[in-house]
């Protein structure tokens, strides 16, 4: 009994989705609005800014208690840290308004939130909340040095050690070693005025409220900061000036993770929804695969290609069939892409590829230096901008361009846009290279890559962390489904170029064919998950991302941008290849791709603009600042790109199509780059600009992808071409037989021309 797509979706809707929704959403509804539980023996600090005299005894005591050397980097003589850093877990700062009104000191250290964003984001639970004391602790053995904690903490507390090959994340852990010995934290043991005191959180709250009651009108809003703010913190503050002036943002009563990751947590709860989606995808793809194969066989029979493929030993019959086909194709040349044909007649090694190789070698050498020297000396990253272009460009932006295997594949297999099958191998190759290079660079970017082995221990994963989801999903996707999907061109090459390997190749093909629906379904589900999670990464950054970009829809918008950008990358690259190697362009396929891309863009832009309107953030788009500038640049590029694509579909013109892809992809790149960099506002005084070495390493890894692409299209049947191209490749190699025989490089004899078994044997 066959099942139609409509029946399948109806079936899923009737049975699967309600079940999954009940499981994933139901439990959350039960817990909605409940306060975050306070650990049984929660301890903390109470800092009263109104009695702090700024003596900095706490700063010196902290350094002594934690055995950190004095931070004299600002001045060789004095211990005067400018901020929290790898040597400073506690600092006294001064708020001094220009108008001469009341000034205030403020002590900055970890807030020990009841629901800490740093721990919520930490992929392998290196940062975790002690279940008894509630102290947010850091475990060196689990930290991979991703610095996501520095991005997510709304108080900008965790700091990274930028120099050295074994960097640490530094933050106040309430002197847990001293607590174990029955001592108080260093800072509280020396304060001469009682400005900072230590104790159980409940006692500290009582003390704070007593101080407010005894001194009416002294404290700002008669409020204890941290009682409810950000879901509650274990470091509590009293101040006479607004808390925001002291660098304590107004975050509301709900914690940042609870507020921002609600949907992410529901979607991934028990993996119920992803499992339902996966099962549905497998069914759809099985049906599509069957139909597609049948059609392909019929088409091959029609063109004579089937006989040619099946009779590569070239019997008289197949030779005749080939001759007939050739006659047919030569008499009626067509641009229709029928097969994938390697780029032949162009050397793999040329000046351009050697230039790329040089850039790659430079990048590898600099990567080695980075491993020894640390991230600071080679990059422009700093405590405010913990992520540089290796993550924000090479990973966030380039994997979006490399999502073609996902976007084009779904259009071809699930939505049955059959013409797009011609682009599939290009999509798969570009995706594989973009992901492989992105993941390699992620390894270089990680401060403590040796701890990556935690990825194979699921019980160590932080299932609520978008970064864990990205790291796990992306690695599995690139190493299994995407790699397997790229095997057929390799098998095809082995089959054609060495007859001895054929039985083995056929056996592998049979096995692959059996598992293909499951592999393809995984290849669509996993990127859907991690490309949206790349957007969810910045949800945890909360108000630090500009409101034009910060939205609960960020995961959907990130995924949407990846789909249209990847269409642009696949179709644009194919067009460029056709131009470069003088291949005919099948405008029917390209029109179809452009049509889909333009509608994807219109849908995406509609969602983006409606979201901005409904959140009331549209006013910020008309401020005269860099954020508005970036927003309009991005919107103009994407919309002009989409309009050009529409025009190209109408006129069947490749030029506006190519320009449309370039502009829309560029706009999409700016969009994907913005939340982490251009629209990220960790601190009004902070700046990030990549260092020269950082740019060279980034360029080297992009070059690696380009070189990999050039080698692959020249060695494997990747680039789509008309059937005549296949025959011409056969002629090409036949004419060059002496040269090929001399080099022994190609076992050329299996292109289906007039090769005889004897001739093959003589090679």
């Amino acid at each position, binding site marked *: 009994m066959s099942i139609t797509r409509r029946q399948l979706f109806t079936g899923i809707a009737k049975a699967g989705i309600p079940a999954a929704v009940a499981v994933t959403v139901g439990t959350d509804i039960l817990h909605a609005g409940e306060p975050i539980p306070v650990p049984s023996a929660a301890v903390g600090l109470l800092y009263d800014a109104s009695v702090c005299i*700024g003596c900095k005894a706490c700063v010196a005591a902290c350094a002594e208690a934690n055995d950190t050397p004095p931070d004299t980097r600002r*001045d060789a*003589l*004095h211990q*005067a840290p*400018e*901020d929290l850093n790898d040597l400073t877990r506690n*600092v*006294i*700062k*001064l*708020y*001094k308004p220009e108008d001469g009104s009341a000034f205030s*000191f403020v002590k900055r250290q970890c807030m020990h939130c009841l629901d800490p964003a740093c721990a919520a984001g930490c992929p392998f639970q290196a940062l975790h909340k002690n279940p008894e004391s509630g102290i947010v602790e850091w475990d060196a053995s689990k930290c991979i040095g991703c610095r996501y904690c520095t991005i997510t903490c709304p108080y900008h507390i965790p700091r990274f050690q930028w120099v050295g090959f074994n960097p640490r994340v530094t933050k106040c852990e309430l002197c847990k070693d001293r607590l174990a010995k029955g001592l108080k934290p260093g800072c509280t043991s020396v304060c001469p005025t009682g400005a900072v005191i230590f104790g159980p959180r409940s006692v500290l709250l009582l003390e704070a409220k007593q101080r407010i009651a005894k001194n009416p009108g002294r404290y700002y809003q008669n409020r204890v900061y941290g009682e409810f703010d950000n879901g509650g913190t274990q470091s509590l503050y009293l101040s006479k000036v607004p808390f925001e*002036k002291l*660098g304590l943002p107004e975050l509301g009563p709900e914690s940042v993770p609870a507020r921002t990751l609600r949907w992410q947590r529901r979607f991934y709860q028990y993996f119920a929804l992803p499992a339902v989606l996966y099962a549905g995808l497998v069914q759809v793809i099985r049906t599509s695969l069957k139909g597609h194969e049948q059609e392909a066989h019929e088409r091959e029979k029609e063109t004579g290609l089937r006989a040619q493929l099946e009779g590569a030993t070239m019997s008289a019959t197949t030779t005749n069939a080939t001759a007939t086909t050739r006659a047919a194709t*030569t008499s009626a*040349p*067509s*641009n229709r892409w029928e097969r994938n044909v390697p780029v032949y007649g162009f050397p793999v090694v040329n000046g351009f590829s050697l230039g790329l190789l040089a850039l790659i070698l430079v990048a590898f050498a600099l990567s080695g230096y980075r491993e020894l020297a640390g991230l600071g000396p080679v990059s*422009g990253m*700093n405590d*405010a*901008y913990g992520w540089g272009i290796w993550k924000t460009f090479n990973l966030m932006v380039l994997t979006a361009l490399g999502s073609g295997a996902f976007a084009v594949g779904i259009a071809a297999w699930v939505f049955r846009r059959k013409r797009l099958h011609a682009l599939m191998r290009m999509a798969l190759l570009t995706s594989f290279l973009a992901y492989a290079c992105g993941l390699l660079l992620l390894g270089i970017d990680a401060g403590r890559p040796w701890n990556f082995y935690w990825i194979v221990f699921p019980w160590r994963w932080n299932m609520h962390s978008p970064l864990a989801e990205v790291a796990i999903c992306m690695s599995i996707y690139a190493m299994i489904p995407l790699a397997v999907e790229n095997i057929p061109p390799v098998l095809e090459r082995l089959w054609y170029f060495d007859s001895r390997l054929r039985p083995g190749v056929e056996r592998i093909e049979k096995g692959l064919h059996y598992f293909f629906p499951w592999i393809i379904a995984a290849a669509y589900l996993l990127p859907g998950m991690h490309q949206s999670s790349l957007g969810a990464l910045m949800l945890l950054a909360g108000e630090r991302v500009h409101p034009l970009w910060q939205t609960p829809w960020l995961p959907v918008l990130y995924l949407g941008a990846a789909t249209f950008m990847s269409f642009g990358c696949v179709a644009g690259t194919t*067009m*460029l290849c*056709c*131009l470069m190697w*003088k*291949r*005919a*362009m099948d*405008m029917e396929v390209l029109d179809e791709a452009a049509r889909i891309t333009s509608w994807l863009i219109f849908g995406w832009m509609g969602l983006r603009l409606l979201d901005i309107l409904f959140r009331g953030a549209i006013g910020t788009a008309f401020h005269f600042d860099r954020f508005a500038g970036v927003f309009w640049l991005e919107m103009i590029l994407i919309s002009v790109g989409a309009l050009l694509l529409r025009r190209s579909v109408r006129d069947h013109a*490749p*030029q506006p*199509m*190519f*320009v449309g892809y370039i502009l829309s992809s560029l706009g999409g790149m700016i969009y994907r780059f913005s939340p982490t960099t251009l629209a990220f506002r960790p*601190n009004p*005084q*902070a*700046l*990030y*600009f*990549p*260092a*020269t070495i950082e*740019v*060279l390493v980034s*360029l080297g890894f992009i070059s690696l992808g380009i070189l990999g692409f050039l080698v692959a299209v020249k060695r494997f049947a990747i680039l789509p071409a*008309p059937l*005549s191209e296949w*025959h*011409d490749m056969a*002629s090409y190699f*036949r004419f060059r037989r*002496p040269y090929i*025989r001399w080099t022994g490089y190609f076992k050329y004899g299996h292109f289906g*021309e*007039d090769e005889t078994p004897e001739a093959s044997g003589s090679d």
Partner: protein
Amino acid sequence: MGTFETVPIHLATPPDTYPPIFSTEGQFKVGAAALVGAIAGAVGGASWVASQRFQSSMEAGTTRIAADRAHAEKAKASSEKPAGREKEEN
């Protein structure tokens, strides 16, 4: 050996005793900016040149097919040569 060493004091008082609430972090690097500009220019320029060449790419595609046809005809003629002669050539 002396019991102490003198330290050259170049600043009698601490620099800025109390840092401000928001400290300055990161800096703009001219060399890196030039490199980024050069890469962006090269990519942009290459894209512009390519887009100009697409103007006539449709005709180029057709020409290519015509050339291929001629090439194929030549190949066909050559394949019709006696097998022995071909072997000699090889």
